[in-house]
Every structure is written in C-alpha cells, then in structure tokens.
C-alpha cells in the first residue's frame, strides 16, 4: 500500500508561488516592458519632453557602424572571458581537489577575488597595468615591449579580459570544486583499477559527470560577460581606445547615462535582451542535450 498525500486546496500552490512571481514581475517583467516602451520614445534627460517616434530609435541604431563594431567586440570579449574563466577555474579546481596539506588555505584564497566589486577590480587592474604608473607595466617597458592600452586596442582588450576573467574564476572555481567533490570516489577508483591514467579518468569520468555544473556555469558566465563586466570596462578603459572595448552593454550605458539618449539606449537594451534570451534558449535546446545528469 502506498501512501499518497493529496492537497485539495487549489489556491495554496499559487499562494506559495506568489512571492517568486512578484519578484520576477517587479524585477524583470516590469523594467523589461518599460525598456520596450521607452525604446519607441524620444525623451530628454529630465523627462520634460516625451514623444512617440515608433521605430526611429531602432533605425538610427542599426545605421550606426559603431553598433556593429560593438557587437563584434562583445562576441570576442565574451568568448574569451567565458572560455578562459571556465577552463582556468576547472584547472584550479581539479588541483585544489587533490589531497594537499594546504588545500583549505588555497580554496579560501581562490574564493576571495569574488568578493571584490567589479569596479574595484577594474581600478586595480587599471593601475597595475597603466603604461606609466603601473607596477606590472614597468617591467614590460624595461623589456622594451611597448605596452600601451591607452592607444593599442589589442592591449586594452587583453587588459579587460584579464580583469574580467580574474574576477570570475573564483565563482567558477567554487562550483567546479563542489561538483568535483560530489563525484563518487568509488567510480574513480574503479577506473584506476581498470588501468586508466589520470588524464583518461578526467576526460571519461570526471568531465562527463561534471557536465551539469559546466552547463550551469556556461549559462551564468554568458550572462556575466554580457552584463556584469560593464563595471570593469568602465573603470579600466571607459570603452576605449577608439571604441575597441565598447561592448554592447557598455554602449547602452554610454548612450543612456552619459549621452542622455534614453530612447536609443532603451532600444539597445531591447536588442541585447533578445540576444541573451536567444543565446540562453540555444544553450538549453542544444547544449543541454549533451549534459548527463
């Protein structure tokens, strides 16, 4: 005889869902719909004159060569940051998962950078690598390497990627470590007894078993590079030089807050929103199939 519990109250499940729904509505649907509405308007910074302009904001947006440049920049930046921060974090996590004497010490220190606010991380890296003030830029100059993120777009990109990766490694590390620790030792030992070396064990046992974590982190990291890295870019390069580190989200900020063009900025956030929704959908549709829970 199986016991089954049935709730006859039809209202209760909805009531239990209400807090979550309210949060989703207030923090997502409401601002998102505001952005969509605003993207059809032209408004001055103070909100004194508002005019409905239909698709004009979108038209002028897609007529800007700078907008396409920022899309390309975003693509380069986000792939670099996501790939590097995930792979480096995975490497660190596998190393810290070994039976080391000082493992707790390493683990704690690895997590610390996550507590640093993006803007602070940006300022930190900005000063370390400032061509004439930076403690780390000076050795580069001594080696006669013309390090100049103020004018060289590639150098600036390397700098923001490093800062963004550094900041995200801790987070990824934490999840990978937890994922690694949940892999049953017996499976690994069985593999070892069957004669599989450490590399083979990693790729055939650990990596597949870690895939739910990796997939989760992939989604989170993509959202991170698209939105959260803005503070780093603002503090390190301000989108420069010559727009080479202006990602799409930085352009939203620059046009909206610095430029006071709220309609154009809203149009960009709508485009950005569509892209991220599409990306996440693709990830769930295609990448998730390869995930083994």
């Amino acid at each position: 005889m199986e016991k089954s519990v049935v709730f006859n109250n039809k209202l209760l499940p909805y009531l239990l869902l209400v807090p979550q729904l309210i949060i989703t509505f207030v923090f997502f649907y409401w601002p998102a719909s505001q952005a969509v509405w605003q993207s059809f308007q032209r408004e001055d910074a103070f909100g004194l004159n508002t005019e409905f302009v239909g698709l004009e904001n979108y038209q002028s947006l897609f007529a800007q060569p700078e907008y396409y440049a920022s899309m390309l920049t975003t693509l380069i930046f986000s792939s670099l940051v996501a790939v590097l921060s995930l792979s480096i974090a995975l490497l660190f996590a596998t190393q810290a998962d070994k039976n080391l004497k000082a493992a707790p010490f390493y683990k704690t220190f690895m997590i610390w950078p996550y507590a640093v606010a993006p803007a602070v991380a940006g300022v930190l890296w900005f000063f370390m690598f400032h061509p004439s003030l930076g403690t780390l830029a000076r050795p580069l100059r001594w080696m006669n390497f013309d390090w100049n993120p103020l004018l060289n777009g590639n150098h600036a990109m390397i700098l923001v990627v490093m800062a963004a990766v550094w900041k995200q490694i801790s987070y990824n590390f934490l999840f990978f470590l937890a994922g690694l620790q949940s892999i049953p030792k017996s499976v690994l030992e069985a593999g070892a007894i069957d004669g599989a070396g450490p590399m083979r064990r990693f790729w055939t046992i650990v990596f597949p078993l870690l895939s739910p974590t990796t997939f989760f982190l992939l989604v989170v990291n993509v959202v991170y590079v698209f939105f959260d890295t803005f503070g780093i870019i603002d503090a390190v390069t301000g989108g420069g030089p010559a727009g080479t580190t202006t990602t799409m989200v930085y352009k939203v900020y620059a046009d909206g807050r610095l430029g006071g063009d709220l309609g154009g900025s809203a149009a960009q956030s709508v485009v950005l929103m569509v892209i991220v929704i599409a990306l996440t959908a693709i990830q769930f549709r295609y990448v998730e199939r390869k995930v083994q829970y």
Partner: protein
Amino acid sequence: MALRQFGAAAAVTVALALASPAHAVTELQWWHAMTGGNNDVVNKLAEDFNASQTEYKVVPSFKGSYADTMNAGIAAFRAGNAPHIMQVFEVGTATMMSATGAIKPVYQLMKDAGEPFDPKAYLPTITGYYSTSKGEMLSFPFNSSSMVMWINKDELKKAGIAAIPKTWPEVFDAAKKLKAAGHATCGFSNAWATWAHIEQFSAWHNVPIGSKANGLDGFDTVLEFNSPLHVKHLQNLIDLQKDKTYDYSGRANAGEARFGSGECAIFLTSSGYYGTAKGTAKFDFTSAPMPYYPDVAGAPQNSIIGGASLWVMGGKKPEEYKGVAKFFAFLSDTDRQAKLHQESGYLPITKAAYEKTKASGFYEKNPALETPLKELTNKEPTANSRGLRFGNMVQMRDVWAEEIEAALAGKKTAKEALDAAVARGNAMLRTFEKTAK
C-alpha cells in the same frame, strides 16, 4: 458668537504653531562632486555660511564624479526630490539650460529674492559660458579653471632648453631635446585630450569648433573642427606619437601623474592641477600659456574655461530660493572669492577678487596661478572664443576622443579622424536638437 471667537483664536494658534517651523532653519541641499582638498573647501563654505546667519542651513553632499552628480540630480528631479543646488560641470551646460522648468535661472532667482546682483561684477569670460546670448546668467560659476602648460623647470634646464617654449613648433623642438636627454617615453603630453586639442586649441587660435558661435547662439549648431589647421595639428601629434616625442595620456586626467613623477616634463592640463602639483612635484615647476601656431593670424586669442557651476533646480518654495540667493551673494563676496582663489587654485569669479589678489602681490610669489587668468583675458573674446555649448557634450567628448585615439594609433589619417568626429558629433547634435525644443 463665543464659539466663533474661540474658533478664530484656535485658528490663529494653529496657524502660529504651523508657522513656527518656518522660523526654524530652512535646509538647502547642495549636491557636489568635489573631492580631496576641494571637498574641504565646500564643507568650509557651507559651515561659514550657516554660522553667518540663522535662517538657512546649507547641507552639502558629495555625489561622486561630475557625471555621477549630474545623473543623480536628473534622476532625483524625475523622482520629484531634486536638490536645491546642483554642481554641474561645464559640458553639462547645454543639457541643463535646455531643461526649462527643471531649473531656475540665477538672474531670475536673484531678481525674485531681491538680492543685490550685478552681472557686470563677474569676469565675462567665466560668466559668458553660463549665460544666454542676451547676457542673462543661468547658473552660478563655482570652480573655474582653464588649460595651461605645466613645465618642469629642472628637466628643461638639464636638457639645455633655455626658454619656456611659446609656440607649438618650439614645444615640438623642446620635446625632442627632452627625449634625447633621457625622457624616452614622453617628450610632452596632456590630459583631457579633446579639451586640449579641439576645444581650447580652437578658441586659442580663434577658429570655430562649431557654427552659431560654438553653439552659444542656438542648438542648430554644426561642428567645424575639421579645418586644415586642426588637421595639421593632429597630423603633427600623430607623427610625434610614433617615437613618443608626444605620448597620449588618456581622455581624463589620470595622466597628470606623469608630470608629478617627472616622466613628462611638459604637460598640458587644467590650471586646477596646481594644488596637486604643489603637493606631489619634487622639482621646480611653473605654468605657462598654451602654445600656438605663430603662422595663424591673431593667435593667441583667449582661452575658454572649464570647471563647474551651480545650478538651482526648479519647483522649490520661495523662501528656499531666498536662502539660495543669500548663499550666492555670500559666495560672491570679494574677500571670500580672493581667499578661495588663493587657496584652491581655482579662478576668482569676480573682477574685484582678481584685482584684490593682484594688488596683494600674490602673483609675484605664485605666477603659476595667474597664467590661466592671463589666458582668459588675453584678448576680447570673439564668437569663436566666448565658450561653447553643445548638447550631449559629455558623450560627444568620448566620441571625439575615440577618433583622436584611432588617429594616434595609426588606424586613421588626421583628416579621416576629424571628419568622422565631426560627422558623428553632428548626428548627436541633431538628436539633442530634437529633444531640446
């Protein structure tokens, strides 16, 4: 009848009770963006004003960078709780003045409050920036500066440069000598890239940045700084950047540290850098007027100001406006202005304060502080040198800087970069024009 009398008495009592808080102190919010020593100046001014009378209390609060302060003020206005006084940097002027209803023009404020106010008492090169074309003062100048060329005298001597260079060709020569004498990474440089090479450069050579007197006469202004002179100057910088005879130091003023550390011995930046230079430079330094091209007829003209002014926000109570007017009168006091100028390095805003400082012999001991004043008053300002007023200026400066950076990095020619800066800037001006009507 008795009841009616009682009612009247009660009403009077209630009215008195309600009125008495009005006799208490009226608080005036002042949002500003001053850091370090200048933050202390702001707090001291508020303290002194509060101690000087009992009716009003000015409450200063720091809101971050200039752009942050302005955005905070705009957001607060939209939410219906703007401060009374807001410090806005010079490039935000067009945005503020187009916001009719959001602001209370200063000339109107002083008239309504009946405070003595003579616009002619202020230095015209300063107030011109913040006035309508009819000369009505819209905001109250607070901290003003101009661009000067800072000179490391010790290093110039070591490199065998006898006189401080006056013209651009002389600066280029001096920079080459400095480079040969060991300044391998920086012959000369500057902070505020666009302020130096587009805005001040144009005014100093009496060529327009844009039509309609650089936008002062209307929002339908069109940018014009892609003239042959501008192209020639940028081309010179591009050529010198190749071997770091000139070395770019970024859009804002973080590069100023390169002067303080001795790396760059010639450095163009704000005259407001004086306080920092005094504190950090371990060498003999001074300031000199900005260089010019001697083959340009009439150069040098006069420089334009930078810095910030105080805007009064709209929709406040009359007695609050009275307090703000009293505060502005307090700030205009000659002794106070002279003292502010001598301590902070910012320019005095009244003629009387300038004369007083001059008469006291202060400039003989501190010639570096008179340079910006000499630049500003060098000649009677023309339509090209009165100031500038472009909408979207905060972001437009970034756009111009992007193009200059592309040119200095060798990705574009001088002409291509300036043409693109003008074209992109004009597009932004048209967007602004549509929202500002």
